């Protein structure tokens, strides 16, 4: 019985908590705000845990399904369900939201309640995206999610926030509107918006190409893939720390997830046809953007570019269209969620005290903040793919998969391990080591216990997945197999 509304609970608990915060914002003091939002984050995490606990590892079918008629004139239904691809991302979402709430309780001073409300609402909407089996339901969550992020960057962001947030919004919406056109096209073909029907409907090759292109516009912007990535560095730099964490840890994953859920199974022949092109784009993302990252002077911008480069691995893995590649790309998504989130938190801690992110304004931080330095070094290592951390597992699997496809592709992508180490460690060297050059640095205070716990949790998860990746792959195995099956069957109409 409980299984029947567990997903709704996961989606609507944070949204309702967030909305009630907004309604009662006048009556809550600062201290109450902090404990209430912590409580809200904990409950929101708690309601997603049964998804992991009760998940059936043996079946590739969607589980915990919920079905209600919604907009009957257009056969739009409130249809939820999760498989191995959704569950880890849902857990990641609720966990990162809780972490952001704990972190922001200490660092955000302005309109804290609204800030938390925005994050809670967004977390519910993102879980909605990960669990929708109806295209319009998915689209509603996907678009609605932009509103809180738009406000988070615009209200709590840095000096150039307005430009960044409007760019973020319009870039994303351009893609999603084209995606909507594709959904409507598919509706006119199948008479419904269920993705089951979308998977089955035969589509001619030009139509598949068009559908794939429109999905590509939506998802490649979100991931982001070169050359649609230019909004991301702006958004990251201007967003407050919490915004950056959620953006990097979860929002980018929506793109990868949606490729798996929509673009590839709906247009398998187009995916196969465009495989070389997509792999090329991914390689450009991986190599070129890594070089761009090397040249950055702003820490957040550097991590943002590193995110793009790492997400290149995800798309590379997915478009290898083999179980190994897909699995590797997926693990890379989860791992990147923890690592990039942690790195943004490290930068956020520094920024809160120094009010600058210029690498050249730092130097010798280790003398004042040994604990933070330890964590930063660890996450930078993980970011560059140190064996034993989760960063290694995904990249290794993707490179292995690429090796089977083409030795050159594998070689190119493996190069990035080098570049990744270069930009991550060089940044660490310039920021944390060396002598203290500036007065401001000598006044730094090391992380407090809360921040320590946050970073320790993330580090533990990174190591856990690095040492025992089965933790994730257990969940995804069956789904990956089924996914590869879906995309290997041609959907061209038989004449």
């Amino acid at each position, binding site marked *: 019985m409980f299984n029947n509304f567990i997903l709704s609970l996961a989606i609507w608990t944070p949204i309702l908590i967030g909305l009630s915060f907004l309604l009662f914002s006048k009556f809550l003091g600062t201290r109450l705000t902090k404990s209430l939002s912590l409580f809200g984050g904990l409950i929101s995490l708690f309601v997603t845990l049964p998804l992991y606990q009760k998940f059936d590892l043996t079946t590739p079918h969607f589980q915990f399904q919920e079905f209600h008629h*919604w*907009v*009957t*004139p*257009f056969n739009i239904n409130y249809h939820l369900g999760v498989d191995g691809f959704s569950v880890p991302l849902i857990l990641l979402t609720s966990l990162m939201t809780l972490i952001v709430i704990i972190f922001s309780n200490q660092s955000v001073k302005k309109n804290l309640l609204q800030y938390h409300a925005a994050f809670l609402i967004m977390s519910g909407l993102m879980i909605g995206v990960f669990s929708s089996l109806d295209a*319009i339901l998915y*689209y*509603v969550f996907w*678009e*609605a999610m*932009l*509103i809180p992020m*738009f*406000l988070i960057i*615009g*209200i709590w962001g840095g000096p150039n*926030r*307005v430009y960044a*947030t*409007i760019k973020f*919004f*319009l870039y994303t*919406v*351009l893609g999603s*509107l*084209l995606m*909507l*056109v594709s959904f*409507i*096209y598919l*509706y*006119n073909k199948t008479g419904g918006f269920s993705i089951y029907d979308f998977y089955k409907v035969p589509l001619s090759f030009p139509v598949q190409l068009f559908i794939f292109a429109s999905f590509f516009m939506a998802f490649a912007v979100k991931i982001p893939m070169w050359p649609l990535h230019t909004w991301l560095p702006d958004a990251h730099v201007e967003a407050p720390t919490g915004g950056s964490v959620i953006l990097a840890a979860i929002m980018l994953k929506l793109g990868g997830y949606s490729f798996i859920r929509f673009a590839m199974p709906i247009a398998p022949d187009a995916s196969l046809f465009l495989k070389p092109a997509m792999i090329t784009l991914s390689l450009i993302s991986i190599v070129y953007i890594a070089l761009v990252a090397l040249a950055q002077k702003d820490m957040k911008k550097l991590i943002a570019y590193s995110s793009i480069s790492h997400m290149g691995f995800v798309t590379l893995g997915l478009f290898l269209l083999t179980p190994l590649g897909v699995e590797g790309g997926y693990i890379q998504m989860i791992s990147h969620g923890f690592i990039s989130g942690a790195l943004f938190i490290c930068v956020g801690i520094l920024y809160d005290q120094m009010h600058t992110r210029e690498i050249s304004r730092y130097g010798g931080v280790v003398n004042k903040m040994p604990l933070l330095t330890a964590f930063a070094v660890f996450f930078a290592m993980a970011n560059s793919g140190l064996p034993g951390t989760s960063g290694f597992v995904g990249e290794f699997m993707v490179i292995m998969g690429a090796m089977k496809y083409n030795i050159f592709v594998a070689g190119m992508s493996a190069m990035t391990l080098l570049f990744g180490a270069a930009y991550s460690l060089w940044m660490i060297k310039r920021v944390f080591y060396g002598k203290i050059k500036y007065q401001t640095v000598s006044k730094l205070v090391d992380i407090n216990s809360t921040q320590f716990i946050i970073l320790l949790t993330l580090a533990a998860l990174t190591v856990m997945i690095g040492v025992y990746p089965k933790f994730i792959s257990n969940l995804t195995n069956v789904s990956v197999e089924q996914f590869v099956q879906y995309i290997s069957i041609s959907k061209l109409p038989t004449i």
Partner: protein
Amino acid sequence: MTNIASHLFVILPELIISFMAMFILILDLYIKDKDRTLIFSLTQLTLLAAGVATAGFGFHEPRLAFNNMFVSDSLSLYLKSLSYISLSMVLIYSRTYLKQKKLWTGEFLSLSLFSLLGIMIMISSHNLLVMYMGLELLSLCLYSLVAIHRDNLNASEAAIKYFILGALASGLLLYGMSMLYGFSGSLDLSVIAALISENNIEPSLLVFGLVFIVVGIAFKLGAVPFQMWVPDVYQGAPLPVTMLLSSVPKFAAIAMVIRLLFIGLEGVSADWEQMLLIMALLSMAIGNITAIAQTNIKRMLAYSTISHIGFILLGLMSGSVIGLSAALFYIACYVLMTLAAFGLIISISSKDADIELIDDLKGLNSRNSWAAGILMISMLSMAGIPPTVGFYAKFTILQSALNEGFPTAVIFAVLMALIGMYYYLRIIKIMYFDVPVKKNKIHISYDMVLALTINAAGLIILGILPKSLMSFAALSTFISLQ
């Protein structure tokens, strides 16, 4: 005698409105300024009574009256009930503002009622002349409403402009109608339709008349390239009148499309579909792109209206029942969100200074966060972002156009909607991210807060559960145009 009674029964809502409009006009002479709330309540009661009378008909097969001059069907049920609701909201939102500006007179109320009467006649007309009569009644009331603030230069200028262009449009329409009459020998729309379908009229002549009719309709809708009057009149007219102009008469304009094109000239739909398509694309492009450059909020909303009209035309241009029901759904959503936007701007316009420029909204969130929230919801809805109703409005239109096989037009529309999002977002940006110029808090009376909250909640609730309104629109179209 029973015959007359049954005819009169069909026009019962119109009778109520016309009688009460006259009664209020006279009653106003005997009433002191401070007791005018009585007249206001009476007006609202009139709308309620007309609403009950109209709803009493329920969904029904078309009923013709007075020698087929007048028709009451499910479409008129849909459009009329929405007109009552919108006018009632317009009056609620205008009250405080008009009192402050010393424009709170009986004329405003009775002119509004008379314009509503014109709208209702247009909605129910089944005859070229009746349509024209309704249109003139509506237009004359609107001309004088625009000029109601007679000491204001801008308003007078807007009224003159509106009058001249409106008269020109009426003239064109009338010319087109006279041609149709000349070719067919009848003013009855179904007779004309029958003659066309029997190929009794020379097609080239018919198209000649059709062009003038479409131009007349486009003028009244405010579609490009006949949109020139819209921004100027919106800007010059007092805020409540702008709100009125941008909401209720649109129901009449869409009724013109339905009665004249869908029913009367259905036989030449291939011709007018192309005209509507071109106007739709142009309206979306010009409306959205020009709106970006506006600094005056009324002008911005005027151009935004033009772009919404473009979307509505995109639904209508397919000439299909699906497209029509999508357009009907869209127009209801459009009016609802426009009312929320204008209602809010009216409510925060203070005694001495109206909100004129977009920059007047700077930092609204810190001056009154409730107001900023309401305006944000209506802007998001206009931009078509879920979970607001604007999303489903755009969705239905795109679905119908794609279904009829216009993928290029749909992609164009989507790109234009994207451009449109920019200036709606800019309003949100100005309210939330900018620092206010004036720091003082804004106080809004409780009745306005209540009404606007209901309105904005409606945008969200309909955005989450659009089924009822959607089915209402679809059902009334299907029953009327089988």
